[in-house]
């Protein structure tokens, strides 16, 4: 008995330290990012560091006034918003079809959706750039949003597929027998039930676009998004500005993902309630 007890205690120790390590791995850099962003330039370069932020908004204010910064922020938001709208309007119907209908090639279709993520963007960047220049949508917000939609779409399809599959067919059938058409059954019964999930998957698409840097850097020159803009300018900037830039990029993504984490688990079929 003592041996089992010991094994259990040491197993618990390994488990707890694993959790602590993983959390530290994620949280410590974020914490440093936070305190360095909120410190004056002198404090950022000083050593040893203080672990309490000074709440000096100097770096952030400087950043906000940096030329081109606001328009890059605006571009990022536009691109992400278009990506969000496109991936839901295209992805949700596909997810619905996958969950409700039996059709030839359904499994292949699902596999192909995943396969779109198998090709790394650097591989596609050059041909895409050429194509974009030919069609005249290079260096436009819409063109970049198209690329980001391709990246976000598989997730939108798979998340909505799992959402719709969670709504019993019987609910829709009951609505039909109670006087609904296919469309009104969808809007009155299915939609209210999946709306939170759809919102989550929209936000996820937004974050994918927000975070994306490679295509943004290759395909835009004048109309850079925030990521591409920072990539270009921060290289040569002083340390405290790099921290501020990183902070501005990371925080919205973190907040959004945290808000929708429940639904992202659902995508992989893990119940988290």
């Amino acid at each position, binding site marked *: 008995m003592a041996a089992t007890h010991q094994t259990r205690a040491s197993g618990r120790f390994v488990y707890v330290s694993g959790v602590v390590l993983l959390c530290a791995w994620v949280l410590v850099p974020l914490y440093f990012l936070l305190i360095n962003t909120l410190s004056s330039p002198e404090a950022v370069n000083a050593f040893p560091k203080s672990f309490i932020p000074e709440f000096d908004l100097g770096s952030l204010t400087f950043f906000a006034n940096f030329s081109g910064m606001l328009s890059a922020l605006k571009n990022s938001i536009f691109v992400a918003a278009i990506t969000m709208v496109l991936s839901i309007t295209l992805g949700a119907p596909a997810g619905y079809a996958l969950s409700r209908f039996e059709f030839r090639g359904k499994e292949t279709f699902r596999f192909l959706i995943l396969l779109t993520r198998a090709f790394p963007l650097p591989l596609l960047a050059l041909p895409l750039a050429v194509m974009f220049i030919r069609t005249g949508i290079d260096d436009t917000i819409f063109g970049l949003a198209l690329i980001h939609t391709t990246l976000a779409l598989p997730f939108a399809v798979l998340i909505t597929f799992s959402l719709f599959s969670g709504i*019993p067919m*019987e*609910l829709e*059938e*009951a*609505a*039909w*027998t*109670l*006087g*609904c*058409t296919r469309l*009104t059954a969808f809007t009155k*019964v299915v939609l*209210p*039930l999946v709306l939170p999930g759809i919102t989550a998957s929209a936000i996820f698409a937004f974050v994918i676009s927000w975070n994306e840097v490679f295509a943004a850097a290759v395909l835009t020159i004048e109309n850079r998004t925030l990521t591409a803009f920072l990539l270009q300018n921060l290289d040569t900037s002083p340390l405290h500005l790099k921290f501020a830039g990183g902070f501005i990029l990371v925080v919205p993504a973190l907040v959004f993902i945290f808000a929708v984490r429940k639904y992202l688990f659902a995508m992989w079929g893990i119940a988290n309630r």
Partner: protein
Amino acid sequence: MAEIEIKNIAKSFGDYQALHNINMTIQDQEFMVLLGASGCGKSTLLRIIAGLETATSGEVWIGGRRIDHLSPKDRGIAMVFQNYAVFPHLTVFENIGFGLRMQKLPNAEVERRVYRTAELMHIEQLLKRYSGELSGGQRQRVAVARALAMEPDVILMDEPLSNLDALLRMEMRAELKGVLAESKTTAIYVTHDQVEAMSMADRISVMHQGRIAQNASPVEVYRNPSEKFVAGFIGNPPMNFLPAVVASTGHWSVAGCEFAGPDAQATTIDFAIRPEDVSPSEAGISAVVRVVEPLGAHLLVTCDVDGHLFRAVLDSDLAIRAGDTITLAPQLDRIRWFDQTTTQAIC
């Protein structure tokens, strides 16, 4: 008036023929039960009537109107589902009123009908709740109330009680029967539970492998099964079968005893008797007792007759033990005969 007529309905899924030419008429205000084991096609038939499934061929008429090409909402039906299908995002009130709102009835009328049906189903106190806050039995009541509020010509029920526990099921059974009789709607009720079928139905259609084996009143189905399948399916324990060899014209020898029977062409047919229709006696079929199960009022005695399984339900005062040899006399007017090749009843 809502008489339902089903004409030559057939349904196949790919190569699999789920329903073979079903013909059936259900009278106005009749309570018809479709009874059968799972996979016999009873739910498919119900879903075809509801319009949730399209038949491969055939016609469905309700109240003299052909409806098989209409969508479910235009058929004048309401349905109660096995898993209740209570909308989780709406209160009980809005669930019951859902169909009425779809018909764009005035608010006062919706309220009147919701309160009336809620009262009928004893759920007035639940109207403000959501389905997540209800028990299975309460959800079932909401589902029935929602169907009744529509005041449909026909109410279709797909195993509505199968998810409830035994006691609740018995309670709901009686209640449903009363409520439906009062509402004067024609009802089709699908179940695999023969007790449910027996106790609720005006008429039972026993289904087997995509066709209707027998369509008759509960007592008729029990007393005079039209074929061997029905005899074996209805009744718990089911009917006993023993081979009968012709002795002389109209007389058959069964396990050493001779009984007057039909005047059949075949030399061997099946003799059948219900377990409760035999009694211990001086002369009769000799049986070796294998297992004795006391059930309170009765003894369920499982015996061996010439190598065939034979069950008898006997009075529990009898002192019978495993290993005993007993003689059982069948009640003569309860004996039934079945053809061995066609499995049909012989009269």
